[in-house]
């Protein structure tokens, strides 16, 4: 999977020059919005183009330059929102944040280097500015629907990281495959949620919740008891 924004010039031969989709993997076009400008990071908006939203990605193709276009997978779109406040941005737009390989290195400035070369994979913000702002709500809704069509892929490898557990069946399956998993569950309760991302993530977080619950219960009991006199407290209470 390609993380982040990328160049996209794969258009079909027709006059409109629609993007070529990966029909083999079931990609379908969901929405076409003509008259959209695109602004990457803090760069000025680029000449009006057409926005194509498919079940897998968002594509923007320039109307004037067939060699110019961008695309980003929904898997890389961390956040999207409608921005209407002219204080923050001059035109109402769809504001998006893009997940990149090196998130911590948020170099905002392509300013210093000039406009000719900038690294698309480092772009963390993208604004889509329709000439017709009344389309914003529709676009936002379509973004939401398509984002839900693209959950994180479940990695099948037996690595120690990112083996998300979605339901009890998976736990059982993994128990059957993995060795000593029950032992891990019952004797290794000290792992924290953040620390352990292993096969038994859910089981361990459940365990931790129960530990927390007991802690809360104690606090509650103490609160109740504080209302009574200490002398009345009996071991059975």
């Amino acid at each position, binding site marked *: 999977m390609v993380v982040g924004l990328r160049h996209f010039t794969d258009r079909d031969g027709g006059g409109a020059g629609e993007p070529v989709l990966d029909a083999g993997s079931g990609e379908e076009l969901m929405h076409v919005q003509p008259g959209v400008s695109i602004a990457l990071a803090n760069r000025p908006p680029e000449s009006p183009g057409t926005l194509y939203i498919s079940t897998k990605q968002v594509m923007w193709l320039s109307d004037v330059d067939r060699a110019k276009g961008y695309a980003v997978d929904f898997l890389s*779109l*961390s*956040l*999207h*929102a*409608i*921005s*209407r*406040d002219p*204080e*923050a*941005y001059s035109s109402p737009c769809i*504001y998006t*944040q893009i*997940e990149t390989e090196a*998130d911590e290195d948020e170099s905002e400035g392509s300013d210093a280097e000039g406009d000719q070369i900038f690294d698309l994979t480092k772009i*963390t*913000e993208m604004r889509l500015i329709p000439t017709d702002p009344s389309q914003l709500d529709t676009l*936002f809704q379509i*973004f*939401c629907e398509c*984002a*839900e069509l693209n*959950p*994180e892929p479940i990695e099948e490898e037996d690595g120690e990281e990112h083996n998300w557990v*979605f*339901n*009890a*069946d998976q*736990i*059982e399956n993994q128990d059957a495959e993995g060795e000593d998993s029950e032992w891990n569950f019952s004797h290794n309760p000290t792992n924290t949620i953040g620390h352990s991302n292993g096969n038994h993530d*859910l*089981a361990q977080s*459940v*365990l931790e*919740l*129960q530990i927390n*619950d007991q802690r*809360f*219960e104690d606090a509650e009991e103490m609160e109740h008891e504080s209302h009574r006199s200490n002398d009345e407290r009996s071991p059975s209470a």
Partner: protein
Amino acid sequence: MLFFSYFKDLVGREVTVELKNDLAIRGTLHSVDQYLNIKLENTRVVDQDKYPHMLSVRNCFIRGSVVRYVQLPPDGVDIELLHDATRREARGS
């Protein structure tokens, strides 16, 4: 699906969602789906100096996979209910 059900019960409440890129957004929980994608309304960015461009945003959709923490309203945590649900989840029923 425990946490999905749990977050569904919090719809309409104020939560703070902290993203893995350190952006923290406070808002009313509008909806959540099975992937823990989160929609917030009436949002405001907690650290506005650092993210001035997010000021204009009043509602947003956050991809579940980029969420680091969700801070909950203290009275939105029903210990008894969670206790029960976690036990049932652990039994796999």
